[in-house]
C-alpha cells in the first residue's frame, strides 16, 4: 500500500519533470577503443531518426547507459538512462539507473527508482532485495523489512536477502530473529565472510562470547553472498575493458569460483590479446588448477607476444617439471632468472637443483 502510493506520486513526478532535451553525455578523456565505441553509441542515440519508435530510441540510450555503467562511468550512465526514460518508461532503465545512483551513494534517488520498478516487476526477488537494502541504508527499517520479506517470499534461497533482513532485525534489536536469518544465509552461502561476521556480532549481543569468537574465526574473507543478477550480467557484457574482467576474475577466484575466474580471464585476453600480464595471470591460474596442457598453449601465445618475459620461462619450467622434463625445466628457469631473478624463480631453481641430484 505504502509502495503503491509512493509509486503513483513518483510516476506523476517523473511525467512532470521529464526533460524535453537529452542530457549531455561527457566522454572527454577516455581511452581507445572505448572512446570510439562510446562516441558512436552516443551519436547513434542523439541522432535517432524521428521515425524510430520511442522504444528503439530508448533502447539506444539504455544501451549507451549500460556501456557506460560497465566502465564505471556512473554519472554518465545516469544521464543516458534518464534520456532513455524520457522516451519510454521502461523498468529496465529505471532499475539500472537505481544501481548507478547507488554506486554514487545517492540512496534517496535509488530508492525512488526502485519503488517504481518493484511496482511493475513485482515477481523479481533481486529487485525487492535491492529496494530493501537501499531503504535500510536510508534508515527506513520497517519498509526495508517489508521489501526484504517480499524478496524472500519470491526466492527463499536468496542468501543476501536473509543477511540484509538480519541487518534490519539487528537495528530493531531483534537479535534472536537476526540470528535465525543469518543461520539461514550461512547454510546457503557459508563462504561469504560477511555472514560469519554478523553472526559473531549477534552472538555477542546475545551474550554468547564463545560462539562469537567461533564465528569470528569463520570470517575467512569479507565477501558478501553472491548475487545472481541477470540485468547486471548483461551490463557486464558491455564492457570493452579487460580490466573489468580481470577484477571479475580476482573476485571469482577469491570466492572459489574457478571456472568463472578462468572465463573472465579468457574474456580479458580476447579483448586485449597482446596484454602480457593477462596472459601470465591466466597461465598462473591454469597451473594452480593443474591444467598444464592449456597452460602450455597460453605460454606459446605469450612467447609470440613477448619472448623475453621472465615469467614466460618460469612457467615453462613449471610445466616441464610437471612432465618430468627436469633438464628442460632447468634450462627454462635459468632463462627466467637471467631475465628477472624473482624470489619465486630462485625457489624453483633450488627445487630443480635438488631434483637434478637424483638424475
Amino acid at each position, binding site marked *: 500500500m505504502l509502495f503503491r502510493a509512493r509509486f503513483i506520486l513518483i510516476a506523476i513526478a517523473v511525467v512532470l519533470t521529464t526533460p524535453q532535451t537529452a542530457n*549531455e553525455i*561527457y566522454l*572527454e*578523456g*577516455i*581511452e581507445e577503443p*572505448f*572512446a570510439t565505441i562510446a562516441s558512436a553509441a552516443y551519436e547513434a542515440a542523439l541522432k535517432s531518426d524521428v521515425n524510430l519508435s520511442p522504444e528503439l530510441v530508448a533502447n539506444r540510450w539504455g544501451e549507451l547507459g549500460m556501456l*557506460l555503467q*560497465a*566502465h*564505471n*562511468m556512473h*554519472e*554518465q550512465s545516469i544521464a543516458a538512462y534518464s534520456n532513455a526514460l524520457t522516451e519510454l518508461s521502461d523498468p529496465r532503465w529505471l532499475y539500472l539507473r537505481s544501481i548507478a545512483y*547507488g*554506486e*554514487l*551513494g*545517492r*540512496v*534517496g534517488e535509488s530508492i525512488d527508482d526502485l519503488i517504481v520498478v518493484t511496482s511493475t516487476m513485482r515477481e523479481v526477488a533481486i529487485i525487492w532485495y535491492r529496494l530493501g537494502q537501499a531503504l*535500510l*541504508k*536510508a*534508515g527506513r*527499517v520497517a519498509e526495508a523489512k517489508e521489501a526484504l520479506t517480499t524478496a524472500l517470499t519470491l526466492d527463499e534461497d536468496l542468501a543476501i536477502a536473509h543477511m540484509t533482513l538480519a*541487518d534490519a532485525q*539487528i*537495528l530493531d534489536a531483534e537479535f534472536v530473529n537476526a540470528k535465525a536469518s543469518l543461520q539461514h544465509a550461512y547454510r546457503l552461502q557459508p563462504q561469504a*565472510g*560477511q555472514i*560469519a*561476521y*554478523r553472526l559473531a*556480532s549477534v552472538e*555477542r*549481543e546475545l551474550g554468547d562470547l564463545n560462539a562469537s*569468537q567461533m564465528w*569470528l574465526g569463520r*570470517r575467512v574473507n*569479507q565477501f*558478501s553472498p553472491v548475487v545472481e543478477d541477470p540485468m547486471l550480467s548483461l551490463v557486464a557484457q558491455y*564492457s570493452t*575493458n579487460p*580490466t*573489468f574482467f580481470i*577484477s571479475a576474475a580476482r573476485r571469482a577466484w577469491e570466492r572459489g569460483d574457478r571456472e568463472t575466474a578462468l572465463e573472465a580471464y579468457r574474456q580479458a585476453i580476447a579483448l586485449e590479446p597482446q596484454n602480457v600480464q593477462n596472459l601470465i595471470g591466466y597461465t598462473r591460474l591454469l597451473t594452480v588448477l593443474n591444467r598444464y596442457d592449456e597452460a602450455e598453449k597460453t605460454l606459446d601465445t605469450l612467447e609470440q607476444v613477448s619472448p623475453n618475459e621472465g615469467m614466460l620461462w618460469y612457467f615453462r619450467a613449471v610445466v616441464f617439471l610437471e612432465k618430468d622434463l627436469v633438464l628442460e625445466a632447468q634450462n627454462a628457469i635459468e632463462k627466467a632468472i637471467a631475465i628477472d631473478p624473482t624470489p619465486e624463480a630462485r625457489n624453483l631453481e633450488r627445487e630443480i637443483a635438488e631434483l637434478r641430484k637424483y638424475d
Partner: protein
Amino acid sequence: MFLRVGLIYPCSHNNLAMTFPQFKASLLDRTRRVQMLWFACAIIPFCVNAEIAFREVATEAGVDFVHESGAIGMRWTLEITGAGVGLLDYDGDGKLDIWVVQGGPLKDRTGDLPSDRLYRNITEGSELKFQDVTKAAGLGADSYGMGVVTGDVDNDGDVDVITLNFGRNQLFRNWGTRFEMRVDEVHLKRSEWSISGSLADLNGDGWLDLFVANYMEFPPLEKYKVCRRLSTRKGYCAPSNFDPTPDQLLLNEGNGVFRDVSKEFGIASARERGMGVVVDDLNGDGVPDIYVANDMAMNFLWVNQGGSQFAEDALLSGVAVNGHGMREASMGVSVADWDQDFDPDLFLTHDIKESNTLYVYEHAGWFSDQSIQSGLAPSSFSKTGFGTVFFDVENDGDLDLFIANGSVSMIDAQLAKRIEPPLRQTNQLFVNTGAGKFEENDATTLSQFEDVSRGVAMGDLDNDGDVDLVVSNNDGPLRIQQNISTSTHGEANHWLGVRLLTLGRDAFGAVAWLEGDIKERKVVRTDGSYASAHDPRLIFGLGDSATLPTLHVKWPSGANQTFSNLAIDRYHVLTQSEQ
C-alpha cells in the same frame, strides 16, 4: 535540543553591508540567498530565534593562505591527500594561533619552496584578526606537508609542533616566541609518507610520546604509472596500488628526545595504510590505547599492555570493520563521549558508497556500529569524508558533529566544467537532537562552500566560549568559520571553559566531567580529525543553566581532584595539586 521556529538562517549584522544592486544581483547565487535571509533577519522579528550560525572570516581576519597540492595534471595520488591545520597558543598569550600545513610543487622541489604558515592571533574583541608571523617565528617548514601534531614535548610550558610530511618529519621546538627545527636528535629521520599523529603519555612517565600514522609507499614520480579505472579516464590510483607502511611509535625519553620503539612495542607487527589516529582509554582499563583509521583496510586498535607492549585487538573489539564485516576506506577519526554514558565513542569518515561509521562503546572494550540508528549514515554515502570533530556547536550540553568532505575520485560534472581539482564537495554539520540521533543542518556557512576539504581543527579562536572551526582545503583557501550561534533566546548559552595543567603543560589524557545527572567524559587532547591538531582546552556547554558547576578531574597520574563553584562563561586554568 531547541524548538526550531520559523527560518533558522542565521542573523548576522556583519553581513548587512551590501548595496541594493549587489543584493539584487545576488539572488541567483545560493551563497547570496543565505545572505539575503540574513538581511531579512534585520527586519523580521522571528529571526531572533536563529541559533546555529557561523561566519567565514579568513580573508577579513587577514589569513590569505591557499594550499598548493603541486598538481600538474598527472593525477598523482599524493597530491590529493594533504593537508591539515593546527590550532595552538604558541606564544602563550591566551589566544589560539593557526599553523597551516603547506604542500608545494611535487615535481621539482628545489629553489624557494613554500612553507607552512603560522598566523598569530591578534584579535581584540570579537572580530578575529591574524598576523602572518611565519618568518618571525622561524618556521621554515618547507617539506611537502601532510599533517601537524601539537604538544609540549619537553615540558617547558610551551607548545611544540611536529609536522608530518611526505618525506622526513620535523620537530619544531618552541622557545617561547620562536621555533627551532630539530630533526637529528629526535629519530624522526625515517622518510615515510606520514599523515596524522598523536602526542600522549603512553607509558605514564610524564613525557608525551608520539604515534605517527604512516600511509603507504609511493614511487618516485618519474616511475609513477597513471591509473585508469574501468571508465578508462585518467584518474587517481587507489591505495591498493601501493604497499602499506608500518606506523611508528616514538618514545619520549625526556626533554623531547625520542626513540623509535615500533618494533619493540609491537606496533611494527602489522602494517596498513594509516590516515587518522586518536589515543584514548578504549577498553576502560585506565591506560591509553591507540586507534588508527586505515584506508581500505581493517582499522587498528592497539591495546596498551602496560606501557611497553601493544596488542592489536580491533576485530574482537568490533572496530576493525563496519557492522557488516566490511573494511572501509577510513580517513579521519574523532573520539568523544557522544552518548554521555562516560565512555569513548569513535566516529570514522569514509569514501563515497560507504557510510561514515559511528562505533558506540558498549561495555568491556567492545563497540557496536550504530551509524544507521544515529542518523549519520544516510547522508554520508554520497560524500567522501576526511577531517571530523565532535563539538558542542551551540553549547546546549550535547555533542554535535562536523565533517570535512572532498572526493578522491574525479567528479564528471566538475571535469566537464574544467573545475580543478574536480573533487569538490560541501561539508556537513550534524546537530545532536538529544534523542540519540543527529540531524543534518545545511543552513550555515559550514556547508556553503564546495571545496576539497581535508583537515579540520576546532578551538575557541575569539575566546567567547564557543568552538570555532578552521578547515583546510586541498588546493584551496583556508576557511576560518567563526561560531556566532545563539540560544533560542537570542543570547549565547552559558559555558565553562577549562585548561587543565599538569607537570607544567596541558594534561593530555586527563578526564573531566561535571557533577550532575549526565556525565559526559571529556578528555584533554589535541589529536583526532585528519592531519590536524585542536585546542586542548575543554568547553562545557551549560545551556541556560546559570548554576555554578562542580568539575571533577581524573589526572593522567590517576589522582582525582574536584573544583567547586567555578564561575561560568569564562575560562579557568586548573593545575593538578601536589598530593
